[in-house]
């Protein structure tokens, strides 16, 4: 499985089996929320802050 470095703490991260683009994973080292932006090539970015509201 492809690996990528955490943008926050540089730690190497391996995508677990079945990880999908658009999924949020947690950096095993620093615990920051990361958005999986692509699987091949592996890429992540800091997940946007969760704003609590909702539609109808």
């Amino acid at each position, binding site marked *: 499985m492809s690996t990528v470095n955490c943008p926050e703490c540089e730690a190497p991260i391996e995508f677990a089996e079945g990880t999908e683009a658009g999924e949020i994973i947690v950096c095993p080292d620093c615990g920051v929320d990361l958005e999986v932006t692509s699987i091949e090539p592996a890429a992540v970015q800091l997940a946007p802050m*969760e704003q609590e509201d909702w539609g109808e």
Partner: protein
Amino acid sequence: MEITVVKLGGTEGVDFSAICKDAVELLNQGKKLVFVHGGSAEANALGEGLGTPPKMITSPSGYTSRYTDRKTLEIFLMAVNGKVNSLLTEQLQMLGVNAFGLCGLDGRLMQATRKESVQSIENGKRKIIRDDYTGKIEKVNSELLMALLDMGYLPVIAPVAVSEKGEALNVDADRAAAMVASALKAESLLLLTAVPGLMKNFPDESTLIRQLPMNQLSAASEAAQGRMKKKVLGAEEALNGGVSRVIIADGRIQNPISNALAGNGTVIE
């Protein structure tokens, strides 16, 4: 001008015609009313009919909302603006009430911020969704509403807002009612629904909470589930926004507005 904002719940059992008939009486007594309605049931039904069943999003903090991509938004607009709003306005007109149907797009009545992304839990996975036309209401054009009220109309508001960029957004009807009530400094906000009010142990109606002081509100919102959680949150926002009292009351009975105004239901002050 003493204004009462009435939110008509969309769930099964809420009796729109009883609410409209009650409104006729109250308007004759000089009361000023503003209606806000929902429409998720209608939107789901239309989606099913067109082969686009609704997809719901459950946010990490447990709120469910409709995943409103562009296609779903159009279905939502047809159901909520086209059917529910028009038929409610027609129903009132047939009772001699000069109703005026509109939504947040019209004259930018309700401006909401569109969230760039929404987090959703899908079979255990947390996901980021970016094309969700959902929003949180920030501003209400109260001058427009006052002008409509001054012209003798009963504004009937659909839960659609406009984003900063002018896009149509799906918004929560209970929160919309709260924001409208705050903007108008309404005397009362009535949330009419298919239960007698907030119950300690749902669905046991004997555990109806009759009085709920502000300071117990956040505890109540923890306990409340699903739709009721949104109502309690809406109540909190309305009271913080200057509304004197919020009453969650039964929308299935006769004269539901007068009944609520008389304090029958959960009165939150």
